[in-house]
């Protein structure tokens, strides 16, 4: 079973040189720490920066330089700042090649729910609806089941949707799965030491198992 940082590490293997990438809050943020050697990508934060760098050294924080999680950051050489309309022009116009974000539920047809639990405080969708509606390539990073042990990979989402038919890939603590066009989670890889049966038991939506399923490699 993968830790959260291992989920991020596995997703980092998906990165391709030349990609602009938007990372959501939580596990997705960690992806930036595991960029494979020789791969050059640039991170977009939807509040208005391309070329986001690491956190600043203590004492060098700038209140005017934050990421979408409101954390103080730095800018790499070649960075650029822009307004929110331009930022979402990049996103909506599919200039960002990969979006990684968390989810509460994903359905077998690629629907995603990650912004609202009825009866609970609603914080808002932020940029998530724009991101999922537009990205050509969306990877969801999440635990395979919720705290009650219930599957988060479902036939249909039960929570209010963030986007429809948009998720292409899901990386969980148990597996890497592809959402196939005809519907269903195609099992691509197992987490080290996790059996296909365990994944099947933790997946409510249609799981597609074809041939031998390899273990992830790090």
């Amino acid at each position, binding site marked *: 079973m993968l830790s959260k940082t291992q989920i991020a590490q596995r997703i980092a293997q998906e990165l391709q040189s030349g990609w602009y990438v938007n990372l959501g809050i939580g596990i997705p943020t960690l992806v930036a720490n595991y960029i494979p050697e020789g791969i050059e990508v640039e991170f977009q934060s939807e509040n208005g920066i391309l070329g986001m760098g690491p956190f600043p050294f203590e004492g060098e*924080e700038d209140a005017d330089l934050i990421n979408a999680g409101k954390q*103080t950051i730095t800018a790499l050489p070649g960075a650029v*700042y822009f307004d*929110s309309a331009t930022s979402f022009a990049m996103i909506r116009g599919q200039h960002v090649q990969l979006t990684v974000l968390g989810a509460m539920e994903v359905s077998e047809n690629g629907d995603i729910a990650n912004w609202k639990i009825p009866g609970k405080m609603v914080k808002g969708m932020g940029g998530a609806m724009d991101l999922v509606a537009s990205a050509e390539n969306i990877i969801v990073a999440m635990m395979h089941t919720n705290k009650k042990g219930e599957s988060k990979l479902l036939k249909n989402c039960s929570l209010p949707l963030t986007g*429809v038919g948009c998720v292409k890939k899901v990386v969980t603590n148990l597996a890497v799965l592809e959402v196939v066009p005809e519907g269903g989670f195609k099992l691509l890889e197992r987490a080290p030491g996790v059996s296909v049966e365990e994944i099947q038991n933790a997946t409510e939506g249609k799981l597609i198992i074809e041939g031998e399923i390899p273990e992830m490699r790090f």
Partner: protein
Amino acid sequence: MNKVVKNVEEACKDITSGVTIMLGGFGLCGIPENSIAELVKKNITDLTCISNNAGVDDFGLGLLLKKHQIKKMISSYVGENDEFERQMLSGELEVDLIPQGSLAERCRAGGAGIPAFFTPAGFGTEVAEGKEVREFNGKPHILESALTADFAIVKAWKGDTAGNLIFKATAKNFNPMMAMAGKITIAEVEELVEVGELDPNQIHTPGIFVQRIFQGVDYEKRIEQRTVRVK
């Protein structure tokens, strides 16, 4: 064309109860601190505030929320504010949540004379309820309308007396679009200079969008999430 007003009191003199105000900023970054403090002091109520976020309990728009001056918030994310949560759950506060990109584009559209546009964001979600859906290139989109406001209040890094503005780093965020969309746009700046001192190639918001400008004072520029690494 001189847009300079003496101070924040004069800039905000005709902002009354019941008006709609756009406020720039993302989280606490790039918010018009001076003007928000003045709105608190003025004690006006029933405000409709269009702002990406709602501040925190004791800073930013949280200060207006605490005094129940806001009737309605139009935002994309309002998560860091307990008082907001209380007022929303109790029904004291109306809240209209909008995808962040649609919020930005709707403000720009308001300023640019585009009354409505199609976007894929929110299709198939509750955001699309009651909105026209149309397919383009095989993909469903929803029709979103422009947003404007009686007043837009923005915060810039530098500005000149003609209202030309330059923003710093990610403090730019929603400020430029909101500056376009206010019937009256008020800019508070960290540094006010004479015309001619800003390079005309480097101005982010042309002065034509700004009706009043003043030199702000005592910026706290609070950091919401101080994240650092060790040397």
